């Protein structure tokens, strides 16, 4: 069985990561920003899995499970904050909540 070269996995991960980063920077809707962060985190997870398979170790996959767990925790707090944001500002646009400057 032909194996996938490590470079391919890392390059795919890098492309996903770039998409996520651009999403965080360009999007102004808080939902899409959280989604973009998820894409970045999963790209890092993919990089871990490919690196783990290169060395034949389970470590990469274990890190991926950690990343999933942490992403879930982060999103649960993120969603709670989104509810608060909506109640205070009646919009999901993050630019609306930018009162502190200087």
């Amino acid at each position, binding site marked *: 069985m032909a194996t996938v070269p*490590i470079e391919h996995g*890392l390059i795919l*991960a890098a492309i996903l*990561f770039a998409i*996520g*980063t651009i999403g*965080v920077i360009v999007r102004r809707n*808080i939902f899409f*920003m*959280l989604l973009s*962060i998820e894409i*970045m*985190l999963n*790209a*890092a*997870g993919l*990089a*871990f899995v*490919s*690196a*783990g398979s*290169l*060395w034949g*170790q389970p*470590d*990469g996959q*274990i*890190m991926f499970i*950690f*990343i999933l767990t*942490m992403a879930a*925790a*982060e999103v649960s*707090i*993120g969603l709670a*904050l989104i509810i*608060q*944001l909506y109640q*205070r*500002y009646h919009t999901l646009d*993050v630019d609306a*909540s*930018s*009162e*502190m400057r*200087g």
Partner: protein
Amino acid sequence: MNASDLLALLPLIILAGTSVVVIIAIAFYRNYRLTVFLTLAGMVGSFLSLPFALSVQPRQVTPLLIVDGTTVFYIGLVLTTSFVVVLLSYQYFRDYDGNREEYYLLLILATLGSGVLVASNHFAAFFLGIEVLSVSLYALIAYPRYDRRRVEASIKYLILAGATSAFLLFGMALIYSVGGTLEFSSLAKAASLSPGMNNVLLIGWGMLIVGIGFKLALVPFHMWTPDVYQGAPAPITGFVATVSKGGVFALILRYFSQVPIYDVPSLWWVFAAIAIASMLLGNMLALMQTNVKRVLAYSSISHLGYLLIAFLSRGTEAQNAAAFYLVAYFATTLAGFGVITMLSDHENELEDLDSYRGLFWKRPGLALVFSAALLSLAGLPPSAGLVGKIFVAAAGVNSALWLLLIVLVIASVIGVFYYFRIMISLYRSPEADEERTISAPSLSMIGSVTLAVLVLLVVGLGIYPAPVMGIISRLITGLS
């Protein structure tokens, strides 16, 4: 896992156990005083177990964590700082209408995250520690959620911290793909593997620096700092400035303990550039602020820049200097934010520079504490900040880092301006219209004792630093 492993991890286990005890206590009997008491008891218990951990050190506990003198010292520092933050929070949240008890639960968890960070010797432990710390902080920053600015600060922190965590993880994955192990020793392995620079490794380190730079609020990753400092409740701002940054700084000291950073010139120069930018930009931006919390935010950026000089120097003296600087900086920052906390409650924070005008004539005690903190931040005698700066500068002189030292001197001179601007306004005669000036609750017993101890520490360390330096060199030197 045998008995000595458990003994080595006892401080962290007690802290984790405390969080479980507190959550059960809240479920069955919701009482503010009881929760605070349990939190403080858990922290004291954890602190008292440090000698047991010290008796079995140095010990690698599973591949993830290492317990040695350095770990014990920094866990002790983190615990003491969190203890003070709990004491400061007591009055701040006493009259809060919502559920007040979970705040302390989150504070314990954040402390645990920082404790794991300083003990970690593996990327998995690094990641878990930093996430336990930051996820707790998201909730802590937005804790008094009826205020829009808290929510705003927390969302800004959440988005940026989430994105930089992804950078950190991607960097770890790239380093792993070159080094073949997630342990911190992979750095040594990867560096010996490729003396000519490996591109994947360089990108990985670059991404790691983004993550670390964000957590330490170094220029150019400092954008979140002023907003989060201003928006977070004052005790939590103190916590972000001390425990969260101290944990990460102890971690990078350990990460680069096997391959000294000056043996990797490209990395050394990146960190040197970051240090110079942080020192200069932090101090210059602080000049333009009219909000005391934002001034302290920019001041913390420049202080982390000073600290990087110790990190970039060689020898154990530099490690001791960094540890002492952290102690001095923690005590000073806590005293500063302690005063702001005492003048605020969860609804109204006294943060406008104008409203501090004439503080001395109404609250002489608080004004004197604040003056001591500002003197120490500016690095003037007799204060801990001066001694810390001398130690850091001495470490820099030993390694002949002249460029960094010149910047240190210039930045300190700029810093004196804005610290003095605050200090002068403390002693000016109060304004005629009293409305928007100080109307804070009267000082509680706990608050005044805490502040008194802190100010004694700040001045005491400036006059007689030998005992603390003795503890530091006994724990850190020879055992690292």
